[in-house]
């Protein structure tokens, strides 16, 4: 996954969503895993969200805070820079993935270290940091259990929150047994597929890394501009290990993660865990403000990442997507995601949020099928804790996709259709041709995938074969004489 698009987002591009989705749909195990998993989280989320009678009020506030932030993003970023610097941190600005990768690599090289431990982070996946560090001879160890599974399997994450949701326990056991020894502490020989044992194997495997690592790389869930406080929300304790034990901490944060005040966190710390894992609170939330003498890293670097976010901000409809807090509630309620899984979206951001975020980050012309990867049912909008109107952005991006295409086969076909439909003589001829041609193409009364310019239409839907004669022909034969 080292291929980055022209805007620097790790972008897997081909195959396009419809092709990738078709392949995913042919994997019953994947669909069973996803159905069970998304169903479980959905129920838990609903239970804990309904505990708070003012859930809708919290959503309204969260959306408004994010709107205030995005409308004055330059102000808040400069305030954040000032607060973090005053607290002993160093702030770096990165225009794109290449810029960010260069900054982080140089910071690691300056320490003289060849290994870093990492907290699961969407931003660093987006820019392909691990691959970039590897080219510079630096090994990045993912320490979140699911990310470890993905990394050991040379695999791709398929969910924002549970990236290995596509793998079952037996597959994970086999992977640990085969691969752990290549990277460090090997898995026990008699490892079973009990999740408890698998978690224990991961604990042992990573412990040595945590205790010896001098440099950690993290993302950030939030950063408050007024105090310069950075927040990481997690479950396993791998985050705390990375944030606490190494000497140097490098945090890569999308510029949209800033919130105005520390007090604003009261809204997000209630919405995020309940929306994400369906818990009242996640096991661990760490906050830090610059550096602290005698506790934790002595050097803290905050890398503020643009990488397409300012382009997104420029779109007055699309900019609401920048409010996303990466809870993945929209994935878990999406009927499309539940069936295709995350890989089909070809991006580190899958599901409904991916369908509206990826095209904006990489340019809609580079991800033209994603805005169509939805039924527009609206479940994602209802579930979103920051009230991103995903269906609205989807239709907006669909329009942009079509406008951007110009003279496509589809557009030409529609133009030809208009000419034919205008002329009874041409229509009659076309219908006769369709009856012959269509029946020749059909299998069991359905027309499946077609070659050439009709692919775009036929790839994602079957069409009934046309009848032997049109209604007009039938009418002429049977009824015209009755008049």
């Amino acid at each position, binding site marked *: 996954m080292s291929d980055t698009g022209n805007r620097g987002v790790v972008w897997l591009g081909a195959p396009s969503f419809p092709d990738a989705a078709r392949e995913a749909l042919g994997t019953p195990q994947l669909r069973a*895993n996803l159905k069970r998993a998304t169903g479980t989280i959905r129920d838990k989320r609903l239970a804990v969200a309904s505990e708070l009678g*003012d859930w809708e*009020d919290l959503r*309204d*506030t969260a959306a*408004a*805070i994010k*709107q*205030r932030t995005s*409308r*004055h*993003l330059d102000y*808040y*970023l*400069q305030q954040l820079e000032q607060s973090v610097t005053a607290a002993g941190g160093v702030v770096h*600005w990165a*225009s794109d993935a290449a*810029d960010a990768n260069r900054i982080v690599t140089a910071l690691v090289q300056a320490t003289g270290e060849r290994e870093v431990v990492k907290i699961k982070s969407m931003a660093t996946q987006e820019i392909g940091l691990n691959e970039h560090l590897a080219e510079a001879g630096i090994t990045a160890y993912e*320490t979140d259990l*699911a990310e470890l599974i993905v990394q050991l399997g040379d695999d791709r994450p398929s969910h924002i929150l*549970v990236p290995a949701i596509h793998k079952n326990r037996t597959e994970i056991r086999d992977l640990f047994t085969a691969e752990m020894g290549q990277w460090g502490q090997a898995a026990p020989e008699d490892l079973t597929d009990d*999740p408890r044992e698998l*978690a224990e194997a991961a*604990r042992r495997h990573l*412990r040595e890394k*945590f*205790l010896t690592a001098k440099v950690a790389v993290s993302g950030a869930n939030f950063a*408050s501009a007024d105090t310069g406080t950075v927040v990481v929300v997690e*479950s*396993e*304790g*791998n985050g*705390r*290990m990375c*944030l*606490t*034990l190494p000497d140097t901490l490098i945090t890569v944060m999308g*510029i949209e993660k800033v919130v*105005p005040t*520390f007090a604003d*966190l*009261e809204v997000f*710390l209630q919405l995020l865990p309940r929306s994400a894992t369906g*818990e*009242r*609170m996640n*096991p*661990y*939330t*760490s*906050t*830090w*403000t610059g550096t602290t003498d*005698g*506790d*934790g890293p002595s050097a803290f670097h905050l890398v503020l990442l*643009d990488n397409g976010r*300012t*382009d997104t*901000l420029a779109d007055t409809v699309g900019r609401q997507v920048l409010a996303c807090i990466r809870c993945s509630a929209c994935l878990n309620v999406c009927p499309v995601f539940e069936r295709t899984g995350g890989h089909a979206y070809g991006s580190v951001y899958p599901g409904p949020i991916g369908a509206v975020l990826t095209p904006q980050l990489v340019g809609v012309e580079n991800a033209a099928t994603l805005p169509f990867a939805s039924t527009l049912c609206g479940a994602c909008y209802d579930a979103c804790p920051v009230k991103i109107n995903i269906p609205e952005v989807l239709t907006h991006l669909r329009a942009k996709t079509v406008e951007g295409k110009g003279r496509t086969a589809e557009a030409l076909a529609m133009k030809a259709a208009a000419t034919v439909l205008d002329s009874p003589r041409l229509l009659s001829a076309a219908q006769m041709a369709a009856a012959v041609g269509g029946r020749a193409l059909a299998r069991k009364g359905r027309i499946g995938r077609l070659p050439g310019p009709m692919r775009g239409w036929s790839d994602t839907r079957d069409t009934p074969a046309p009848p032997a004669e049109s209604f007009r022909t039938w009418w002429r034969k049977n009824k015209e004489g009755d008049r």
Partner: protein
Amino acid sequence: MSSREAILTRIRAALADVPADEVPGDVPVPRAYRRSHTEPGQDTVTLFGERVADYRANVTRTDQAHLSEAIATALTARGVSHLGLPDGFPAELLPSGDWKWHQEPLDTEALVGLDGAITLAAAGIAVTGTIVLDTGPGQGRRALTLVPDYHLCVIRAEQIADDVSDALARLDPGLPLTFISGPSATSDIELERVEGVHGPRSLDVIIVDRTDPERP
């Protein structure tokens, strides 16, 4: 142009639709949500205990007079003997017995050798069942409650805030804060919850009730 200037310039260009005289405070932020999700008159200390226990942590409730005894009971039940002790933990609370107390500062190697750590807390959150540490007196460096496999936390009833909003208002963002809701956990394998990955696999919380001389 530096990346900093480039990004700020792009942001300003992207926000061309925002009126030049608009200030952040002009964007309305409604605050209709409740600052606390407890019911009026609810016993929030009991609620805190129940919510902490929901995460499969062991919760004990006691008073100042019986605190030392409660600590001894918890440690005995866990079968631990080498315990990390942060600066500022009241020595008079430590039970007498076979326990070996290892006073901070402790390097990473020393932390690895411990069975657990005992600390006070900075605050609690009743609705979410959360304890918060801020590295203040009796709480130790962050690593103390992270590397050893067991954490015993003593919290006074008056430290327990009703909900997240009140808790944040009590805390100093300038200090490193750790919000702990149960033992470390993962649901990464088939979404089956497993307690204990990298952080402590066992968490005990002892709540010390208010000593109120006005009431018997």
